[in-house]
């Protein structure tokens, strides 16, 4: 056999290495391994050889063919990797160009506080009750043990609306009328909170708004005590404000609770903050709600919701909550 396989392999190897792309490599594949290739032609000539030499030459041809295949495959992998690199490079993006600040919206800071309180009390076993913002005089005052002409009505600067009989219908001055509505519709035991919007005839300033929000809690069950009230408020204080906050009760006056108290919270720095009012549900209120005060007892407490939002975020002016400036709203 006069074929110099070594030389052929060397020449082919150089050609393969020079193949510039997959098309050129495909052409080489045909040229080196196809029907008209040197190795295919040589295999056809094997039949003319005697058996020993045929075996030896066949083996050499197989090796050469395998070597060529290996070279072609190696180059193919190389070229494919190169082409992928080029293709991906062409897809390069500057992601910072593409950051358009797409954003989620923002819940109002009052809503955030409202929902946080709901979640906390739901966790403590309470349901959430609601009532109308325009109320009748009975639910807002009468049923809450403020008889007509009662001096404590002066504690509330009430806004009335022109509806029904004069002074019969008003913008609720507190969330407490929902206590009565819950008693009217549900059987005890009652463990409910009542967040809501309330109204007073107050000129807007840094700490007053004619519209603001309160949250109220009502518990009515058998054998509920003032100690239960104090313990519940302490649990709430720690859960909402965090470890290091405690609470205390001071005697106060509300017509719809007795004994009545203010509840204060003590910050970790030792300072006290007056948070809200509370007390044992007055027997007259239980009766107004259709319950027998000898059978059922209960407590209620309530406080301003907006103020908690202000405190959490260090906002010093209540009016900001209702101005709806987007630069304010989008911070929370």
């Amino acid at each position, binding site marked *: 056999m006069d074929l110099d396989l070594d030389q052929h392999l060397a020449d082919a190897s150089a050609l393969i290495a020079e193949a510039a792309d997959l098309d050129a490599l495909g052409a080489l594949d045909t040229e080196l391994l196809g029907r008209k290739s040197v190795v295919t032609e040589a295999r056809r000539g094997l039949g003319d050889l005697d058996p020993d030499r045929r075996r030896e030459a066949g083996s050499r041809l197989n090796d050469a063919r395998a070597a060529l295949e290996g070279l072609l495959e190696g180059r193919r992998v190389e070229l494919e990797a190169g082409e992928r690199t080029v293709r991906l490079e062409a897809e390069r993006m500057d992601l910072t160009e593409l950051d358009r600040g*797409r*954003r*989620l*919206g*923002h*819940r*109002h800071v*009052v*809503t955030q506080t409202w*929902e946080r309180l709901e979640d906390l*009390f*739901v*966790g403590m*076993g309470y*349901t*959430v009750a609601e009532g*109308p913002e*325009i109320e*009748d005089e009975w639910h807002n005052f009468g049923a809450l043990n403020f008889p007509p*002409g009662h*001096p404590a009505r*002066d*504690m509330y600067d009430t806004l*009335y*609306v*022109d*509806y029904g009989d004069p002074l019969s219908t008003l*913008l609720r001055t507190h969330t407490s009328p929902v206590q009565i509505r819950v008693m009217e519709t549900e059987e005890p*035991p009652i*463990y409910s909170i009542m967040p809501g919007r309330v109204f007073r005839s107050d*000129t807007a300033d840094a700490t007053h*708004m004619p*519209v603001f929000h309160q949250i109220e809690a009502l*518990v009515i*069950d058998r*054998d*509920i*005590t*003032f*100690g*239960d009230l*104090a*313990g519940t408020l302490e*649990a709430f204080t720690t859960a909402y404000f965090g470890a290091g906050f405690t609470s205390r*009760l*001071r*005697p*106060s*006056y509300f017509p719809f609770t007795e004994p009545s108290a203010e509840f204060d919270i003590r910050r970790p720095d030792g300072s006290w903050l007056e948070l809200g009012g509370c007390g*044992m549900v007055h*027997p007259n209120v239980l009766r107004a709600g259709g319950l027998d005060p000898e059978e059922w*007892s209960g407590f209620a407490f309530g406080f301003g919701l907006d103020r908690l939002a202000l405190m959490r975020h260090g906002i010093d002016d209540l009016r900001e*909550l*209702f*101005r*709806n*400036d*987007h*630069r304010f709203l*989008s911070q929370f």
Partner: protein
Amino acid sequence: MKVLLSWLREFAPIEGDPADLGEQLSGLGLAVESIKPIGEGLGGIVVARVLGLRPHPDADRIQIVDVDAGDGEALQVCCGAFNMSVGDLVPLATLGCVMPDGMEIARRRMRGEWSNGMLCSPVEIGLGDDGEGILVLDGDHAPGLPLAEALEMGADVLFDIEVNPNRPDAMSVAGVARDLAARQGAPFSLPEPAVAETGLDATDRLSVEILDPDLCGRFAVRVLDGVGIQASPRWLANRLTALGMRPINSVVDVSNYVMLELGQPSHTYDLAKLAGAGFRVRRAVDGETIETLDGVTRALTSADGVVADSDDMVVGIAGVMGGASTEIGGDTTSVALEMAWWDPASIAASARRLGLRSEASARFEKGADPEVADLAMRRFAELLADTGATLAPGMVDARGNTPERETILVRTGRVNGILGTDLTRDRIGELLGPIEFTAVPNGDDLDVDIPSFRPDSTTEIDVIEEVARMHGYTRIARTRPRSMLTGALSRRQVDRRTVRTAMIGLGLDEVMPVPFLAPGDLERAGLDADGITVTNPLVAEESVMRSSLRPGILKTLAYNASHRLAGLGLFEVGHVYRHPEASQPLPDEREYLAVALAGRDAGDAVGVWSALADALAARDYALVADVVAGLHPTRTARIEVGGVPVGHVGEVDPGVLDAFDVPERVGWLEVDLDTLLGVPHGDTPYQQVSRYPSSDIDLAFEVDDAVPASAVERCLREAAGDLLARLSLFDVFRGAPVGDGRRSLAFTLRFQAADRTLTDAEMADVRRRCIDAVEGSLPASLRA
């Protein structure tokens, strides 16, 4: 109510530093708003005599005062007040003196002129609230005398207490002292006035007739003779000043002093001027008039109580203000001293109607002590004795109706059941004793008599509160109720959160405008002007309750646009208030969602709606072109869910935007959440995902513009039948080759069976049905 520590100590040996006493008072429900040391820090302030007054050459608001501070030399001081005259004695804060507020007095130039000290106003030395002028001292004092000596001011502590409306007894120094002494376990006593009685018996000189016993529970009168008007002694004037009342003259001051000390207001009449020397206590006749002490003639109504003389001429408005005709003056010698108990509601109504609220009416309104008059009369006479006034024997004491005070059964078990305490019957009695609630054992329980000065306490629960107060709220052990209930949000509350979450996810910010509108806001927004009005609004801009969220959000957009904040996407969830269609006790109050997309159009608003419908799984909805006042007439649709109208989507009418100064197009969505969340929505039955291949058909139709895409869609759905897995409108095209007034609507329909692969024949069949249905029922044709 302000009280001085020295005054409290006249009733009980009260111990403790001011801060501790403040805590104790707050713990009794007498919330201390401030604690102020007075009569301290006055070292360095001396009496000075004004020698001369000169204008400042370079300042109008300052004058130059030469004073003698005790060494006979003229000392130059600059002063911003002009109320003194040459010869006056005034307080001078000398150089180096540190004022009660911490300011140190130094020699300094004021507009070029030296000032060698500071002349003081009452407020600067802790005497009253008057900061307008310099304190001009009464009497004669040697210049250089320390001010504290001239004013007879010892060191004292002033507590300012917020008294709750149920505690009229604490509107007196004695009442505060009683509570505090009880807390400290200190003995409390009301001092017995030392006063001799002389002259003609009052009962022979006066008569009283109560014509309206519901108005007047008690009308007690005594007579003082030899009354002369003069200045009060300094110590008394100081106390009045400290408690916020201006000293006037000996009689008025003693009246105020007794009221502050014992809580009993009084009124004095010049006996010589009182026709018939008799009092008739009755209601006024409508139209009756009286000239009151302040010189104003006031018209009365039958709501006002009055005191009339024997000729039935009105000489005073009950509990509110006396009349000019019997006013005591320089020529007065004998005085009729009235101490009454008035019906609280009557006084409150009268004082409010006349706009005459005073320290006296405040006490009558809350409920004064009907039984303190005897003591208070003698205290009055005692305090006035130094002026030469003497108390005549006898008291004309007419009684009307005062509240019945029944003995109350206080059950030991009930006390502990309400409070969560473990107090014994006897311990409860011991707690009540010091505040003069007399408790007598009745089996395991107590019969309790309430003192006359506690009108608030009428039932067992009132007494339980007193037990808690005296025991100490903070000593009651804290427990938690043992409830078997689980907490949860209602379905509605969960849905409301879903609505908000969907809006947040769409990048919208929640706003919270106030629900008050100005008159005209609703009309500007294209809405009916039938908002419920506020009877007593603070300002006209807040006199209408919103019947829609639209005006509030448009105002919010305008506000933000005026601050160069454009392109905002906002939403609000809130109540609207409407007159109901049929009569009902309360207005029709509903919760709404409103969305405003500034700078975006109706298509974006539809996108917000469809996302909301998806979030709530309200899948069965339809958009029906609609014309709604205030919304864009050609870009608005009514939203129906399950056939029920729930709101509108589209854009705000450009004219409305102009009226609200909103400079951009506004995509709009408003949904009645009460209705939407009331129609069936949410979980739908599970459908197993088919494992067989699906096949798609694309169909494009030319359709008249008058035919909504939803009509074509509905037609296709009906024709496609149960095998339809999905249908979507993927392209809308207007222009050639599509004819004028028509557009091309291209739909993709995906078909799939749960149990087999669909055959080519089935697909050809359903395709034909779909085309025939659309072409057959609508002005539409399949595009080639």
